[in-house]
């Protein structure tokens, strides 16, 4: 059993484009203060940003949890629905259901989930109408 060193929880509001990235920025700063390798910090920053944007664009709101272990960073992104209809399709690069408004701001490239998977050492996704839950684990080298 891994020993949890620190745990932070961030609330993320639906459609709050103006604060998009705020949770991820705080996560990044927290990791920098404990001198995590910059390449690991970058992986966490990209994965957490994509997860945060997904909550803002696609969900009814949710939360991000950052857990720091001795050998691993774990991010959990849990939203309050409405869920992803076809997870396999959502995992394919370029597929997006983002609104035109979101796309005009540069979101909705269809790279969110694929980027998260690419930057994770362990990635899990479950989704139903009550919510989507992501677990993103990144090992500290």
């Amino acid at each position: 059993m891994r020993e949890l060193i620190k745990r932070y929880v961030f609330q993320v509001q639906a459609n709050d484009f103006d604060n998009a990235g705020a949770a991820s920025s705080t996560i990044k700063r927290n990791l920098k203060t404990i001198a995590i390798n910059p390449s690991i910090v970058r992986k966490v920053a990209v994965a957490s940003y994509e997860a945060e944007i997904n909550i803002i664009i696609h969900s009814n709101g949710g939360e991000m949890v950052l857990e720091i272990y001795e050998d691993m960073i774990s991010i959990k992104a849990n939203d309050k629905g409405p869920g992803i209809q076809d997870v396999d399709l959502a995992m394919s690069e370029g597929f997006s259901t983002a609104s035109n408004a979101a796309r005009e701001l540069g979101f909705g490239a269809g790279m969110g989930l694929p980027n998260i998977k690419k930057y994770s050492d362990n990635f899990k996704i479950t989704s139903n109408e009550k919510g989507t839950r992501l677990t993103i684990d990144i090992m500290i080298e």
Partner: protein
Amino acid sequence: MKISEIRETLKLTDAIACKSDNEVQGVYIGDLLSLVMAKAKPADLWLTIQTHINIIAVADLIEISGIVILEDMAIDEDTLQKAVEIGIPIFRTKLSAYEMACQLHDLGL
């Protein structure tokens, strides 16, 4: 190369007063934020037509040296305020991505 050198040589307009004279090691051009997150490298100068406040979060997360807003696009006031707060230089130019990229290439980037 220092960002101040690029600014002066290419006559970029300061969108904010920012004292950070970051080192620039490369250039990335893009308007889709996920692609920028995945592909731009730390210390890149980022050329874009996006002006929404979220470009500052992206630049901060991946440690971009500075942002050049192309085609003289109007920049949201929120974006400028956030850039000042985070300390990320942001410039404007009338040039297109291609024209700007050619000039940066001529500078050795």
